[in-house]
């Protein structure tokens, strides 16, 4: 990474804060407890997408490590060439598995990258909603207790 670019961005951001006082018009995806507090992934999908029948597809590209370096910060990315309306990530062993939903308007790439918490070794599933149907890709992420705390 080039250090100058960061300093410039920092400058741009602080310049932008001046414009922030006007209350922004929000266009949020509308988080809902009915979706995210579900204990079962299928229920979460049902409430988020009105369906929970899923089809595994190799067109859903899920990237997550085999062994997490640290369960508190696990990089996960989902991408697909399908015409996607929405992308979700499920972490099966978490108390409420649904971690994120991302809506993909026309003109936006069907891709999302984030970092997730995983309490223990778990199945991670990427869900892509395309043409009203849900397509998935899954993999196991091992979460271990490290030997070197410090």
């Amino acid at each position: 990474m080039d250090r100058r670019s960061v300093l410039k961005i920092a400058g741009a951001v602080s310049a932008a804060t001046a414009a922030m006082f006007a209350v922004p018009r929000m266009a949020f995806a509308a988080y809902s407890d009915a979706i995210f507090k579900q204990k079962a992934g299928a229920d979460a999908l049902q409430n988020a997408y009105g369906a929970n029948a899923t089809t595994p597809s190799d067109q859903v590209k899920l990237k997550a490590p085999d062994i997490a370096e640290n369960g508190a910060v696990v990089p996960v990315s989902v991408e697909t060439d399908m015409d996607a309306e929405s992308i979700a990530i499920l972490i099966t062993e978490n108390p409420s598995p649904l971690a994120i939903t991302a809506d993909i308007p026309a003109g936006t790439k069907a891709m999302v990258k984030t970092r997730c918490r995983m309490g223990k070794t778990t199945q991670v599933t990427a869900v892509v909603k395309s043409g009203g149907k849900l397509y998935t890709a899954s993999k196991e992420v091992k979460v271990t207790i490290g030997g070197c705390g410090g």
Partner: protein
Amino acid sequence: MKKIISHVAFGLLGLSVSAAVVAGPAEDRAAFQKFYENRFPDTPVADFQNGVYSILPAAREQWEAIEEFPPYELSIERGEEIYNKTFANGKSLASCFGDDGAVREKYPHWDKDRGMVVTMELAINECLEANGEKPLKYKKGAMADVSAFMSYNSRGQSINVEIPSDDPRALAAYEMGKEQFYTKRGQLNFACADCHMHTAGMMYRADTVSPAFGHATSWPVFRSKWQSMGTLHRRFAGCHNNIRANPFKAQGEEYRNLEYFVTYMSNGLEFNGPAARK
């Protein structure tokens, strides 16, 4: 025949004597670096500055994903603010270290006048105190932020720590650091070298231990385990705690000399801090 033997004996003796005479820091370093190059032949030498990720491709991928937008960038920003904050006397850290604080390559160094190793964090606090400001805590927080800002602006500077030959006290400080590195400590009976040299790359429970070659290059770091920034001496203390040895004081003589030794061992690499670590 007798003559030949005595010649051989003399030759051997001469060899060992000369080796004993010249085995100084430079030879130590050559042997140290060669050890890691032999152990990890697939790692390009310059890559050792990336710690465990230089030898562990699977972890490296996650690390690179974190480095896409590393958490330490927020620390750099905070550090910049502190760096440019005006002291009560009208000066600032910039009065001591220049506009951008890109002075990482000057530390650690041997201060002949005071007869001690001076690290960058120590120098930061000395600048604060000389200007009537309160010193910062050495292990984390504002100190790590300032150090992150200065290290960031110093990225790419080469590590070239000197052990001046005209001051035997400098060599003694180096030797103290060296002894620390190789001496077993704590109830678990580990030396730094046991994990980070002789079993570098192997697993301790679920963790692969990092090679010590390159250890001093990337500080301060944002450690996922800590969920915060920390300085090299914070990590030294953490390692000592792990092996159940009482840690020494951050920026005390023991850790400064250990930093002196470890950084000297990485001469030829680049400073590339701050960094993200697991």
